[in-house]
C-alpha cells in the first residue's frame, strides 16, 4: 500500500494512504478529542458524520479548519492540532454544545462515564457565555420505556444511535427529525419506544456518548426487596457478566471474576446466589432436543417442519422477529431464554423446594443486556401478575450496587455459586459470545444423536468475531449446515433468505449485539475500544477451557432436575414452564 508522510504538530509520521488525520495523530500519541466519531473496528460499525466539530485541526493553506476524524492525510500534509486558532475553535464549539446540554451531571446516570463530561474536564470550561440570559436550551419530553430512558435534552446529535439502529441493527426505530436547533434523534412521530419498531437491543445506549440514552435503573427496587425480611431474594448472573464486571473496578478487560461476583452478591445480601449458566445448560437440553426433533422430521421429508431452527436466547432478537418478521416466528426455537428458564425454575421448582410462596420470592437477574428488562415484563412470563423474573439489572447497575455496599471488589475472596441452580458447564459460559449457543448445542446434539463421545470438544469453526459465519459440522456422517450471526442487520439477511426459500442452513444462532452478549448494552461502556470486546471474547473461551465439565448434558444438577422434576427435555412440564410462544407485534396501519 502507498505510504505518505504527514507532519502533525511538527512531528512526521508515515501512514498508509487514506488514513485520517485522527488516526495518524494517534500513531504519534497525539490524542485529538472527538465526540461524534465512533468506530468498532472489526465489528463493522462506523459513525463518522463529522458533525460535532470538536476534532477540528489546522491545515495551513486550507481556508477552514479540518475535522480530523474524516479528513484524510495528503502527501506531505502539515497539521496543527493545538494552535491557538484550533484551541479557540474547539473550546467555543464545546461551549456551544454544553450550552444546549443540561448541567445536571451530579444526578445524571452517565456521570463519570460521559464523553462530554470528559471533554468539559479536559477543557476546563468554567464560564459559558452561551448559557443564561436569553439563551435557550432544547426541550424534549423524557421517555421511560421498559428498558431504556430517552432524555433527548442531553442529545448532542452525534447520531451514533441512529447509525446503530438503522445501519447495524436495521431496526429503524430512530431517525434524526426536524432541522436546525430543534433537530434531534427521535422515534417516528415521537412515539414511545414500545409503540415503535424498537427491539430494546440497547445498542443505542451502548454507543451514546452522553446521558441521552441510558438504561432504566432497577437498583432501588432491588434494594427495597433486599431490605424486606419477608422476601427471599434469588439472583442469577448471566455468562457475559463475569468477563466484564472487573472493568468497572479497574481490572483489565478480559479478567474472569466469577468467584468475586458470587461473593459480592452474597455480601450484598441475596439469599441465593445462582447462575444463569445453569439455565443456559437447561436451554441447551430443551433447544437441542427441539433441534434434534425438527431435524429428524426434516430428514424424514416432513415439508411442514420449520428448518432452520433459530436460537431464541436473545430477547432483542425475539423482539425483532415479533416486530419485524412475525410471519416467520415459527422458525425460532420455542425454548425460553436462559433468564426466563431460570425464573420459571426458581419460582416453580425452587420456590416449592424451599417452601416459599411465589409472591414472597424475588428473582433478580444480572444481565449484560437491556432487552432483558423488557423481557421480564412480558405478560406470558407472569403468573397472576407475578413475574418469573422480578428485575433485571445490568452489569453496570451491579457495579454500582457493589460500590454502594462499600465492597472492595478487588480484594474479595472468590466463592462458589449456591446449589442447586449454580452448577454449570463450559458450554453455558460460551453463551456469552457469538457462536457460543450453537457450539454448546452441537456439543450436546452430537453426543445425544450419535451416542458417541465428541472427539474434539472445541468447534473452532463456529468461533470468531465476523458478523456472519457459517460452518458445516459433521455429526457422524450427518452434515449440518450451521450459521452464526450477530447484529440484527445480519439476522435480517437470514430471515430474508428464509422468506425467499433460499436458506440452506439447518440451524442459525442469532445474537443482537456485536460479538454477542459480551458487548451487550448493559455491559461496562467500551467507548469504541473494540480491543475490550476482543478481550471479553477471549476470556469467555478461556473460562470454558478452565471448567471441568464442558457439555450441558453432563451437568449433574441438570441431569438431576430432569430426573426429579421435568422428566425429559421438551416433555409436558418443560413445555409448560420452559417454552413460550411468540406474537405478531408488527407496527402497522389498519384499514378502517
Amino acid at each position, binding site marked *: 500500500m502507498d505510504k505518505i508522510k504527514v507532519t502533525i504538530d511538527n512531528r512526521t509520521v508515515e501512514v498508509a494512504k487514506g488514513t485520517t488525520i485522527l488516526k495518524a495523530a494517534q500513531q504519534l500519541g497525539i490524542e485529538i478529542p472527538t465526540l461524534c466519531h465512533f468506530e468498532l473496528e472489526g465489528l463493522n460499525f462506523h459513525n463518522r458524520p463529522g458533525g460535532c466539530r470538536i476534532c477540528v485541526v489546522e491545515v495551513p493553506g486550507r481556508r477552514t479548519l479540518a475535522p480530523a476524524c474524516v479528513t484524510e492525510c495528503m502527501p506531505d500534509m502539515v497539521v496543527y492540532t493545538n494552535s491557538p486558532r484550533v484551541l479557540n475553535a474547539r473550546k467555543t464549539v464545546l461551549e456551544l454544545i454544553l450550552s444546549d446540554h443540561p448541567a445536571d451531571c451530579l444526578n445524571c446516570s452517565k456521570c463519570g462515564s460521559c464523553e462530554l463530561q470528559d471533554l468539559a474536564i479536559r477543557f476546563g470550561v468554567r464560564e459559558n457565555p452561551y448559557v443564561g440570559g436569553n439563551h435557550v436550551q432544547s426541550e424534549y419530553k423524557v421517555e421511560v420505556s421498559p428498558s431504556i430512558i430517552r432524555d433527548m435534552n442531553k442529545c448532542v446529535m452525534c447520531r451514533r444511535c441512529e447509525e446503530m439502529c438503522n445501519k447495524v441493527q436495521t431496526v429503524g426505530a430512530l431517525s434524526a427529525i426536524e432541522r436546525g436547533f430543534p433537530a434531534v434523534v*427521535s422515534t*417516528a*412521530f415521537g412515539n414511545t419506544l414500545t409503540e415503535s419498531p424498537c427491539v430494546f437491543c440497547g445498542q443505542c445506549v451502548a454507543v451514546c456518548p452522553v446521558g441521552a440514552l441510558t438504561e432504566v435503573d432497577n437498583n432501588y427496587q432491588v434494594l427495597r426487596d433486599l431490605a424486606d425480611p419477608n422476601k427471599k431474594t434469588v439472583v442469577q448472573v448471566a455468562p457475559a457478566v463475569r468477563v466484564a464486571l472487573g472493568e468497572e473496578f479497574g481490572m483489565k478487560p478480559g479478567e474472569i471474576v466469577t468467584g468475586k461476583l458470587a461473593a459480592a452478591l452474597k455480601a450484598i445480601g441475596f439469599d441465593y446466589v445462582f447462575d444463569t449458566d445453569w439455565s443456559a445448560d437447561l436451554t441447551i437440553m430443551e433447544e437441542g432436543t427441539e433441534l434434534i426433533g425438527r431435524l429428524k422430521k426434516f430428514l424424514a421429508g416432513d415439508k411442514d417442519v420449520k428448518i432452520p431452527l433459530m436460537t431464541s436466547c436473545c430477547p432483542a432478537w425475539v423482539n425483532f422477529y415479533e416486530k419485524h418478521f412475525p410471519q416467520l416466528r415459527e422458525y425460532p426455537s420455542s425454548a425460553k431464554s436462559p433468564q426466563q428458564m431460570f425464573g420459571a425454575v426458581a419460582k416453580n421448582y425452587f420456590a416449592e423446594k424451599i417452601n416459599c410462596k411465589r409472591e414472597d420470592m424475588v428473582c433478580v437477574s444480572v444481565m449484560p443486556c437491556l432487552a432483558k428488562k423488557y423481557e421480564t415484563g412480558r405478560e406470558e412470563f407472569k403468573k397472576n401478575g407475578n413475574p418469573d423474573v422480578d428485575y433485571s439489572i445490568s452489569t453496570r447497575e451491579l457495579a454500582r450496587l457493589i460500590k454502594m455496599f462499600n465492597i472492595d471488589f478487588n480484594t474479595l475472596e472468590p466463592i462458589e455459586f449456591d446449589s442447586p441452580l449454580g452448577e454449570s458447564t463450559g458450554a453455558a459460559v460460551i453463551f456469552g459470545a457469538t457462536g457460543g449457543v450453537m457450539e454448546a448445542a452441537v456439543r450436546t446434539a452430537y453426543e445425544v444423536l450419535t451416542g458417541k463421545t465428541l472427539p474434539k470438544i472445541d468447534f473452532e469453526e463456529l468461533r470468531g468475531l465476523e458478523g456472519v459465519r457459517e460452518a458445516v459440522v459433521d455429526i457422524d456422517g450427518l452434515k449440518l449446515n450451521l450459521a452464526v450471526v450477530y447484529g440484527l442487520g445480519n439476522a435480517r439477511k437470514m430471515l430474508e433468505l428464509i422468506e425467499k426459500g433460499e436458506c440452506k442452513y439447518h440451524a442459525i444462532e442469532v445474537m443482537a449485539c456485536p460479538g454477542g452478549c459480551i458487548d451487550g448494552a448493559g455491559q461496562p461502556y467500551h467507548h469504541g475500544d473494540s480491543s475490550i470486546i476482543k478481550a471479553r471474547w477471549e476470556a469467555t473461551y478461556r473460562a470454558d477451557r478452565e471448567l471441568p465439565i464442558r457439555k450441558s448434558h453432563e451437568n449433574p444438577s441438570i441431569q438431576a432436575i430432569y430426573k426429579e422434576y421435568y422428566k425429559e427435555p421438551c416433555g409436558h412440564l418443560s413445555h409448560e414452564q420452559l417454552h413460550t410462544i411468540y406474537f405478531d407485534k408488527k407496527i*402497522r396501519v389498519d384499514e378502517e
Partner: protein
Amino acid sequence: MKIQKQLKDQIVEICNSFNNDPCNLINVLHQVQGKIGYLPVEVQQVIAECLHIPASKVYGVVTFYAFFTMTPKGKYAVSVCLGTACYVRGAEKVLEEFERQLGIKSGETDATGTFSLNTLRCVGACGLAPVAMVGDKVYGRLTPADVKAIVEEYRAMEK
C-alpha cells in the same frame, strides 16, 4: 393506527407509480400532500410500508423540509413572503397585521379551519414586494392598511 381504505388505496397507488422506490420518497410526499393537503401520521406510516423504509425515516424527512406539513391548512392559506426584498420593504409589519386580523400566529390554523397563516421565502415577485398570497392569488405592494380588506374579502365569501 387506522386509515380509511380509500385513502390508503390512493397512497398505495401513488407509491406504485414511483415503483415504491425509496429514492422517490420526496416526490411521493409531494403527491400525497398535494392530494390530501397534509401528511398525518397514519399516511406517513402507509408510505413507509409501501417504500419498505422505517416510518421514523419518513417522519425525519417530513419534519426536515419546510414544504411538508402534518397539520391541515385552512381553507384560505395565507402566506406572507419574508424574502429579503419583501423584508426590507416592510413585510414583517404586513405579517403582524395578518396575525392581528386573523387572530392566529404564523404557522397556525384558526379554530374553524378557515384561515391558516404561514410565511414563505421568496415567491419571486420581488418587484411587487411586499407580497402575500392567499391560496394561489398574489397580493403585491402591500401595506398593513391593505390587510384588513383582503381578510374581509374572504370572510365575506364565507358568509
